[in-house]
């Protein structure tokens, strides 16, 4: 028996709302199977992964710390993906944001004052935006495939960071460890509530960004422009919109947000530069964007879920002895299932042979 797709006359609203949940349920099912294979009771495994981190205040703070960069980056990526610009180099833009933003406290620690932090955040966003503009420029000017160029730049960014922290930016008083000097208090993004946990103001930036995206898409001509060009470039030209300009805008915006996430992570969570500043946030955010159906409210929810997998992975490693590598598998499966269930929005599945008497 084979299945075949039949296009729905118009997209199904039911499945548009339901598909992320179905995908999540399928992921849980696959996860349970994975636990079973590894000899862990499935329910206990799922509990450790997806419930336990939500039961304590400090771990909710950790959740906010991990959700903040995911949401920030995914908001920008949503604008890219909606307008058919395939930026998959957010990881690199994140790193460049971290580097640019850190220049001030690393190179001029003596200048530290009240404006340090705002300047760092601005520079971080600018660094990410500039780095994001490279593939956009190459696409607009030379027609070069942005998927490949933006991805290649991730490796370049990682190597640049590696060189900086082992070379010119290494802490002279750091016993040769590949790290910059630790930022002083004025260069650190403060915690929201020091008593309760580590969460810093990054999560607020993320929520503001999501809110701004919601407004942009819903009520402005720019949002309309993004949707039109994404749906049909020729209709975009007919509307007088420039897809090249939009490509530059989308990459600059998503690069900027990824860069902001980068410097927020460095100044809020880590406190200095080191060879690796991201556990793959830039790639995981791609999953967040799709799981959130490229819409802001969805992204906030999806960002929280994906942040949960990071925490759950750590918890499961500690209490159940499960490999932390399982996290990436969960995340990958989740994206697969989202894409698969999204098909149901536009198509009905039916058994071939149902309607014609073959």
């Amino acid at each position: 028996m084979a299945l075949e797709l039949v296009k729905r006359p118009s997209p199904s609203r039911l499945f548009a709302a339901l598909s992320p949940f179905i995908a999540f349920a399928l992921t849980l099912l696959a996860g349970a199977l994975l636990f079973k294979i590894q000899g862990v009771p499935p329910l206990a495994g799922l509990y450790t992964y997806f419930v336990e981190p939500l039961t304590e205040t400090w771990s909710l703070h950790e959740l906010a710390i991990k959700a903040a960069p995911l949401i920030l980056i995914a908001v920008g990526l949503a604008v890219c993906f909606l307008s058919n610009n395939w930026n998959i180099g957010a990881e690199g833009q994140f790193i460049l944001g971290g580097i640019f933003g850190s220049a001030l406290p690393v190179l001029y620690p003596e200048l530290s004052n009240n404006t340090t932090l705002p300047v760092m955040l601005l520079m971080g966003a600018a660094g990410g935006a500039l780095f994001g503009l490279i593939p956009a420029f190459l696409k607009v000017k030379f027609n070069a495939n942005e998927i490949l160029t933006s991805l290649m730049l991730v490796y370049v960014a990682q190597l640049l960071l590696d060189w900086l922290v082992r070379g010119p930016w290494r802490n002279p008083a750091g016993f040769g460890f590949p790290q910059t000097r630790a930022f002083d208090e004025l260069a650190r993004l403060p915690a929201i509530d020091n008593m309760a946990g580590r969460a810093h103001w990054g999560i607020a930036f993320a929520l503001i960004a999501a809110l701004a995206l919601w407004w942009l898409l819903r009520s402005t001509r720019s949002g309309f422009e993004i949707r039109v060009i994404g749906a049909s470039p020729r209709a975009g030209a007919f509307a007088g919109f420039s897809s090249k300009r939009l490509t530059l805008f989308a990459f600059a915006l998503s690069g900027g947000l990824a860069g902001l996430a980068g410097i927020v992570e460095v100044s809020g969570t880590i406190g200095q530069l080191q060879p690796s500043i991201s556990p793959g946030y830039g790639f995981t955010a791609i999953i967040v964007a799709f799981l959130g159906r490229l819409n802001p409210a969805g992204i906030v929810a999806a960002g929280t879920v994906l942040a949960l997998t990071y925490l759950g992975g750590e918890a499961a490693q500690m209490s159940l002895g499960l490999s932390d590598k399982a996290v990436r598998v969960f995340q990958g499966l989740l994206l697969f299932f989202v894409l698969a269930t999204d098909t149901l929005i536009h198509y009905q599945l039916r058994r071939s042979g149902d309607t014609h008497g073959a």
Partner: protein
Amino acid sequence: MPSDTQPPLLELEKLRKAFPGTLANDDVDLVINPGEIHALLGENGAGKSTLVKMIYGVLRPDAGAIRWHGESVDLPNPRAARRRGIGMVFQHFSLFEALSAAENIALSLDDAPPMDTLTQRARELSERYGLPLDPHAMVGDLSVGERQRIEIVRCLLQEPELLILDEPTSVLTPQEAEQLFKTLEQLRADGKSILYISHRLQEVQRLCDNATVLRGGKVVGHCKPAEESAASLATLMVGSELPEVAHEEALESGAVLLDVRALTRPAATPFAVALQDVYLQGRSGRILGIAGVAGNGQGELFEVLSGEVLTEQPLCIKMRNKAIGNLGINERRKLGAAFVPEERLGHGAVPNMSLIDNALLSRHRSDGGELVGITGRVKRGKLRKLAARIVESMDVRCSGTEQPAGALSGGNLQKYIIARELDRKPKVLVVNQPTWGVDAGAALRIRNALVQLARDGSAVVVISQDLEELLQISDDVSVMHDGKLSFPMPVAEANPENIGLLMGGSEANAGGNA
């Protein structure tokens, strides 16, 4: 009388096919005898294409029987149909642009001989039936007429007993069509049967022995076209008698609102046509018709006139005495121009967006601050009212303005798009293929609206492949061929013969120097 000894070649009994939301074929019966040219008549959306796709095995019927030589057959795919002796020439060709003519031919044969033999046989056939072609040419470089010849030769190589042609003349000049008819008559003389799909009555009367007429997916009559009048056939096809387009004499010569001089544009892609030295004038109160076979630069001309593509010399295009060659489409709209592109879905409208959003598509800059505020905020309430007004003005059938544009029928969406532009009362309107694939009722309504706009003092330019349409509504007619535009002639002097010659490229040099 069909003899008792010999069953008909093809017999369809109560064939039925439904798509989500529509019943495309409803209990269709049809009989074709050997050596007969049989017409399948019906207007756009009547279900002709669905029916022939079932005969050719592309679609499978939901119910009913197909009998071939009197014997019930199942055609699960085109290969099975070909094996039985059924060949088909598609309306939108099923050719591969990146492959050569010979490779295209080889692909359609289930057991293709070596390339050399194949090329040789294709040559013989093309000579016998007057269908010249170059086997080594890349299909992407060929004209539509040449592509059609490849399709026909490709079918004939399989030695079919039944040849299906879907609207074959819609892409040909009248002279090319005449040549095709000769080929088809030769085939009939050789004992082959032909199922000829068309909505053009004159050619059906000229060519076909019998006809089956479809309307709304149902058979509404079988007849002998030669014994009917064009009017009676039309009534059968459309269901009611349609009034003619009201076309009074135009005002003598109004002001020039759109003035194009010495416009050239290099080809943008490998398969595009370069525009060469185009002159045209759109005058107040008149409709300029631009005829031509598809793919001769009409799309390229439209892009330059609309401003989707800018020209380097601004003076080449003047609108209301202002040089606009380097102004974008919205700047031109602000000067009072409006445009309707050929492609409805994905150009003139975004299929998965609502009619409300689609109202904004061409009007977000042109309507002052009416629809979009200075901050860029879209005024949803006003937009909603606009969409409702557009729907109302042309009687667009839809389940509400929240419906996505892609869910409308071709005719209704075209009415919506045209009404969206007419609602602004443009001083200059450029339309590409106003009634392509649109049902007769909607076409009539659209044509009347275009004539009315011109009579109210606007300049209207209509690009169309439908010569009948142009002769009906234009005041002057020019012909586009290979990127060049002929000198306009008053419609009173135009007829299918002289326009057809220009469409085929002769005397094309006569135009150009106004």
